[in-house]
């Protein structure tokens, strides 16, 4: 009886290999290639469409990872059911091997795939969003099965494994919307007229070509006192998150041109000598 059981266990893997011949391998490879091509083509087309209809971008880009999962799942299902056609025993054996593979070190890959599925359905961020994942900040350009790719402000492409979604906090600055809040700080010396400085910053923000203002997307200008300087902070939405830095730069440049005209000055460096504060001016 015991011998009979042993024989059966050993026979199952052999029968799997019996059904996998050269033709089957070619079929499987063809299906994988077709699925991969489909994923690439649909991804490319949907990215083009989302760029053209920027306002509805999030609706379109949401489909990209979803389609990836659907296409790959359909390919796997087709390979298993129509090409290999396993028996129940073969399936049991496959899952046994699959479990062993997981234990032997493929768990990170499957963790990434599970993370990809969670990102697709839970949508903590989407393609096109400005996100911070771990210590990386940038625009999400692709959510793949295994990793999420973000482009940082200095144009580096960072691949973040999808399992990070379980272990690291992620924040999305725009949550699928085309606009996002931008914080612009300018610093003036304590002697400058802060009311005038605030008005100029406010005007610079609301007249910017990049700004987006509505009842739901208001702007605000705040002042905060520090020991030797004041910080004037504007919070406003940029109409297209891709213009985040241009918005900051344009407002800051125009503000300083106007500040110079109005005699509003930047803070002066301060040295602390033996407990006494000394202000260093240009003359010194």
């Amino acid at each position, binding site marked *: 009886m015991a011998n009979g059981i042993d024989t059966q266990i050993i026979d199952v893997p052999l029968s799997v290999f019996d059904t996998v011949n050269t033709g089957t391998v070619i079929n499987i490879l063809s299906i994988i290639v077709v699925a991969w091509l489909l994923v690439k083509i649909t991804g490319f087309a949907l990215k083009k469409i989302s760029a053209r*209809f*920027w*306002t509805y971008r999030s609706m379109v880009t949401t489909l990209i990872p979803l389609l990836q999962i659907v296409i790959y799942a359909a390919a796997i299902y087709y390979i298993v059911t129509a090409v290999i056609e396993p028996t129940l025993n073969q399936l049991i054996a496959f899952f046994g091997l699959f479990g062993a593979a997981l234990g032997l070190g493929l768990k990170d890959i499957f963790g990434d795939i599970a993370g990809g599925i969670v990102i697709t359905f839970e949508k903590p961020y989407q393609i096109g969003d400005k996100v911070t994942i771990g210590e990386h900040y940038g625009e999400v350009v692709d959510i793949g099965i295994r990793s999420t790719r973000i482009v940082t402000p200095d144009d580096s492409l960072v691949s973040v494994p999808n399992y990070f979604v379980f272990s690291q906090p992620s924040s999305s600055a725009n949550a699928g919307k*085309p*606009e996002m809040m931008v914080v612009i700080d300018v610093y003036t010396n304590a002697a400058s007229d802060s009311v005038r400085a605030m008005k*100029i910053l406010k*005007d*610079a923000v*609301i*007249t910017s*070509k*990049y700004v*987006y*203002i*509505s*009842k739901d997307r208001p*702007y605000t200008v705040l002042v905060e006192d520090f020991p030797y300087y004041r910080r004037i902070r504007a919070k406003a939405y940029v*109409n*297209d998150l891709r*213009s985040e830095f*241009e918005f900051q730069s*344009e407002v800051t*440049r*125009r*503000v300083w041109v*106007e500040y110079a005209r109005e005699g509003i000055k930047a803070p002066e460096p301060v040295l602390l000598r033996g407990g006494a504060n000394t202000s260093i001016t240009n003359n010194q």
Partner: protein
Amino acid sequence: MPDAPPAPETVKDVETEKDIEIRYAPELDRISATIDAFAEGKCSHVAVISDPFAGQAVLIDEIRKRHGDRTFYFSFESVVSRKDFIATIRRQSEKDIIIIDRCHFLALRRIGGFDLLDEFLHLLTSSRKLFVTTWNSYTWSYLDSVRNISAYFPEVIHLPQMDIPMLKSIILGQYSGEIQFVDDTPRVEKRFLSVTWKEAEILKKPFRYPSFGIHPEYLGRSAGTYDSVAAEDIIFRRIQKISDGNLGIALKIWENSFSYPHIRASSIPDAQCIIDLTVNEAFLLLIILSMDSIHTDDLREIAGPEMEIEKVLYRLHTLGLVEEKDGLYTVQPEALNCSAVYLKRMRMVW
């Protein structure tokens, strides 16, 4: 063949008194009610909002006609740079209704560009007179978002878009003779859904792709019966679609397409709206759209030193989006609706 009538210059030349009364009946009633309430001590300043070319002037003329002895009329012709107008308005002690036309010229989209608007709003809140003002709709929506300007005007009246029968009645009302409508568009376009093949290049290789067009005017009609579609309806549907119910634009399209006594569907420009602009180009287009017409010097002031406005204006001009006359830039009437749709999509019009 009868002589062609002279081409209309503006909406004012075309609309009869009866047209105006019919077209603006609800708006005129609201303004009259506000004036009546003002006589009883309730002051609700009025803002009349309209798109460029929409012809708010005829409404203002009608108000002046009805309340002529009580009204003082003042119109800004370009961007306001001095506050003399405040003193002029203050001097009108014997008039209790102040009509100020084209108030969008009070604000300029630059740092410090709202000072005169603030002065004006101060005058408005401190005066015992009733102010009836007109504004460009794009400037209004901008100022309402950034300065909450509607808080100063309890009575905000948006001029309505015109429907096809109204457009038809006003346009055809100019002519006494018979107008011949000719639908000479290609047969392929005479279906609800048409497919034409276009050519493009991908990796420097020619590539043909199908372009789909939707023509609601042919909905429910089979290809065999397309000839029975009234050419007149087709032509007015097209005019209404391009003008988006703006009478001034509809008249311009009519004027450009009409060769007495024929009007051909093929001579009406394509309603397709394909614009692709840089941020600077879109921004200057927005400014021109928001101001009705604006001088190059004012545009330069708004654009600042970082923008080469000559280049930008040249591109806008070559794309057929703006036109220039004596240094004043205006949006091409036929391109107004398309430009507005594009700028909304770019989230520059809110």
